[in-house]
């Protein structure tokens, strides 16, 4: 019989709930549990953490997820793969070790992958001829080069596979691709060659269906979402993969959710540009050749994805400070809620002018339906208008001070503006981060990628000496 590798999904982003992964560890009969903790936005959140405290910069919920799952690593031999390292994989690694010691678990081999962070290597790479021009717009790098807060390359499966070969039970990485956490076990277990494009492409599609947790099992489903069973305890996907790359996507019977053609197809195109050419560091996958077949309740069989050679470049995403966002909120109630809120808007706009607050951009949204009058709010009618409207006004400023001055304009409106204003709120200015993406020859990055594997008890011994 052909060997099958079973992989469960844990997190779809930094902050995702861990309960479904615990259910998979208990009831999913899996060999691996893979996390994708790094949504596009996450690196910029983590870099803010690291600026405040250099020991941080990884996803903080790694503590709760490891506490919940480490016992299963020990008891059932489930391996955990995560890119929770973010901006600081070594910090994440230290935290996993700390949790293991706290739980009294020894003998675990934990690997940490570094080398995706190229912030300190920008000049060196420039000297080697890398232009770092923006891959979308072609804009020149000079405008942002001196302001960079982070610069990370998207790594593929290679270092994760290497860590598994070195016997790692847990692999912690920085910016590896979302799909790499899921493809790596297959390359390791089946020994897929690095130019076995079709199998790799099947593995990438599997990873893509797994990386956003419940988005394959009925979460965020736009079809008949009311038919999704027990959304309150929705399960995350499990893949059963054969050596030839064919796989079944399913979930545990103990969890809620729904896996069928309609839920899977939505995830297949999520965050995809050209579905015939999904570019990853490991392969360029063609999702339009894939065939999906419902072979049972909550079981979809997937085959036929084709691949073509991986690119010679890796994508690097960089972030730089790009001004501040100021934000205020105020709501007005019936009657004439819309008229009042528009008046408040015009007052604030005039005051911005009068006080010389420098603003690059202003955005105004009207929000709300029953926030002020609760259950007594009348439903909206054409004659009567909305029962209440909140105004959310956001501005982009170059200086923190201007965003702060803007924030202070809203509260006085409670006494000085139109009647029946409630829920006034100014939010503290937030740093905005601009993102810059470019392509870099892969060998310049891969040559510096390092995999270190350490055993927990040995570290425990050395640290007590």
């Amino acid at each position, binding site marked *: 019989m052909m060997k099958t590798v079973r992989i469960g999904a844990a997190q779809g982003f930094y902050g995702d709930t861990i309960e479904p992964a615990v259910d998979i560890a208990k009831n999913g009969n899996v060999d691996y549990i893979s996390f994708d903790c790094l949504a596009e936005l996450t690196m910029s959140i983590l870099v803010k953490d690291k600026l405040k405290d250099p020991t941080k910069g990884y996803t903080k919920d790694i503590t709760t997820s490891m506490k919940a799952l480490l016992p299963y690593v020990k008891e059932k031999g489930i391996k955990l793969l995560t890119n929770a390292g973010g901006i600081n994989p070594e910090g994440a690694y230290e935290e996993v070790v700390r949790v293991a010691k706290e739980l009294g678990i020894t003998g675990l081999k934990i690997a940490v992958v570094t080398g995706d962070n190229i912030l300190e290597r920008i000049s060196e790479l420039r000297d080697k001829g890398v232009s770092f021009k923006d891959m979308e717009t072609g804009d020149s790098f000079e405008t942002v080069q001196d302001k960079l807060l982070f610069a990370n390359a998207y790594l593929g499966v290679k270092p994760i596979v290497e860590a598994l070969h070195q016997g790692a039970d847990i692999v912690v990485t920085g910016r590896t691709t979302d799909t790499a956490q899921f493809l790596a076990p297959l390359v390791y277990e089946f020994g897929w060659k690095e130019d076995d494009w079709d199998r790799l492409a099947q593995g990438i599609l599997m990873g893509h269906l797994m990386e956003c947790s419940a988005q394959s099992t009925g979460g965020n489903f736009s079809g008949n979402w009311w038919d999704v069973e027990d959304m309150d305890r929705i399960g995350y996907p499990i893949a059963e993969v054969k050596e030839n790359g064919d796989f079944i996507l399913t979930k545990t019977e103990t969890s809620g959710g729904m896996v069928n053609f309609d839920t899977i*197809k939505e995830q297949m195109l999520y965050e*995809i540009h050209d579905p015939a050419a999904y570019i990853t560091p490991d392969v360029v996958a063609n999702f339009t*050749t894939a065939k999906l077949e419902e072979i049972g309740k909550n079981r979809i069989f997937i085959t036929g994805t084709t691949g073509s050679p991986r690119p010679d470049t890796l994508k690097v995403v960089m972030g730089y400070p790009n001004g501040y966002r100021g934000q205020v909120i105020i709501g007005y109630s019936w009657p004439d809620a819309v008229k009042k809120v528009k008046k408040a808007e015009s007052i604030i706009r005039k005051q911005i002018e009068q006080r010389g607050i420098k603003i690059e951009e202003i955005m105004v949204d009207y929000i709300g339906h029953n926030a002020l009058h609760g259950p007594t709010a009348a439903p909206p009618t054409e004659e009567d208008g909305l029962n209440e409207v909140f105004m959310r006004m956001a501005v982009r400023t170059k200086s923190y001070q201007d965003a702060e001055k803007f924030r202070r304009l809203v509260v006085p409106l409670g006494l000085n503006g139109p009647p029946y204003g409630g829920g006034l709120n100014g939010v503290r200015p937030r740093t905005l981060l601009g993102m810059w993406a470019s392509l870099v020859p892969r060998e310049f990055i891969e040559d510096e990628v390092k995999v270190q594997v350490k055993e927990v008890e040995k570290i425990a011994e050395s640290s007590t000496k």
Partner: protein
Amino acid sequence: MRKVQLSELSQARSGDKGNSVNVALFAPNEEIYNVFKREVTAEKVKEHFAEFVEGDVIRYEAPNLLALNFLCKEALNGGGSSSLRVDGLGKTFSSNLQRMYIEVEEELLEDLAKN
């Protein structure tokens, strides 16, 4: 021919990548998929999102999923970490596209109602 809102005929999911949004639109059967191909062009999507999507709209086809995938550039006011929008990640672009009306042959709608 009858004017029908896409929400009555489709599934849709959207997601971000930098300052771009993709909106995938799924048809319930092949006949309606062909109608989508005719009616929901990149130009019309660009027009639908006027002043919201500032860049180009590119349409890709995924016939195995009876889906059209629209890549909308410069769509998120700078992208997640830089956007002033409430929905800076473009998660609701899909339902927004489903507000679009298209022309559909009566008999195709009758067939759909039967199934």
